[in-house]
């Protein structure tokens, strides 16, 4: 029954610059992930998005958390009850 979500994550990973994608719910549980080991930090990803949402007083505004590092950027976005974290490299990664 999660085939749709799995297919969506696989399609996301077809982008060469994306090396990891993670989905988590409001409780920090992991419905699906691909690529880099983001699944070890599902709780942190969920909490980061929730805390960032508290920084804005305007409800329609949805904040995006960006973690910039030498190994690329991790962009965390919350959409209703689900939080998605995408690990994206600055340069496309060649896959065999």
């Amino acid at each position: 029954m999660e085939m749709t979500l799995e297919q969506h994550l696989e399609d996301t990973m077809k982008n060469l610059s994306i090396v990891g994608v993670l989905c988590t719910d409001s409780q920090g549980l992991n419905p699906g992930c691909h690529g880099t080991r983001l699944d070890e930090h599902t709780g942190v990803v969920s909490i980061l998005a929730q805390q960032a949402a508290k920084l804005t007083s305007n409800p329609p505004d949805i904040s995006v958390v960006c973690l910039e590092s030498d190994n690329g950027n991790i962009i965390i976005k919350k959409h209703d009850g689900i939080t998605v974290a995408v690990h994206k490299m600055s340069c496309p990664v060649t896959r065999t």
Partner: protein
Amino acid sequence: MNGSCCWTLAAPQPKPSMELSPTTTACLPLAQMSRPCSPPSSPRQPDSQGMEQHEYMDRARQYSTRLAVLSSSLTHWKKLPPLPSLTSQPHQVLASEPIPFSDLQQVSRIAAYAYSALSQIRVDAKEELVVQFGIP
């Protein structure tokens, strides 16, 4: 004087080791007036009247020694774990171009599709959950 709260005008007897000065003798009654009297059984009263200056210094030195011993033994809190660092050159990261808006839009689309995919998850019962029992 009974044990109830009262104000006293009596100054304590000066100690031979204390140097009397006009300000000291003049201010003692006023200082006493600013403090309520304590009952004779108060534990603080014997210390304030029985200790001399060298006893004060000895006690202060003893307390400072104890404090130094305690602070030297508490070393676990000094070894704080280092904060995680995502980069060894933060100025380079800060000076680089910000994350493109196209990336933010891409992540927004991924999150929207993921939410749509998750909302489609439901239990498909292969058999009827409620079975009709036929009693012949």
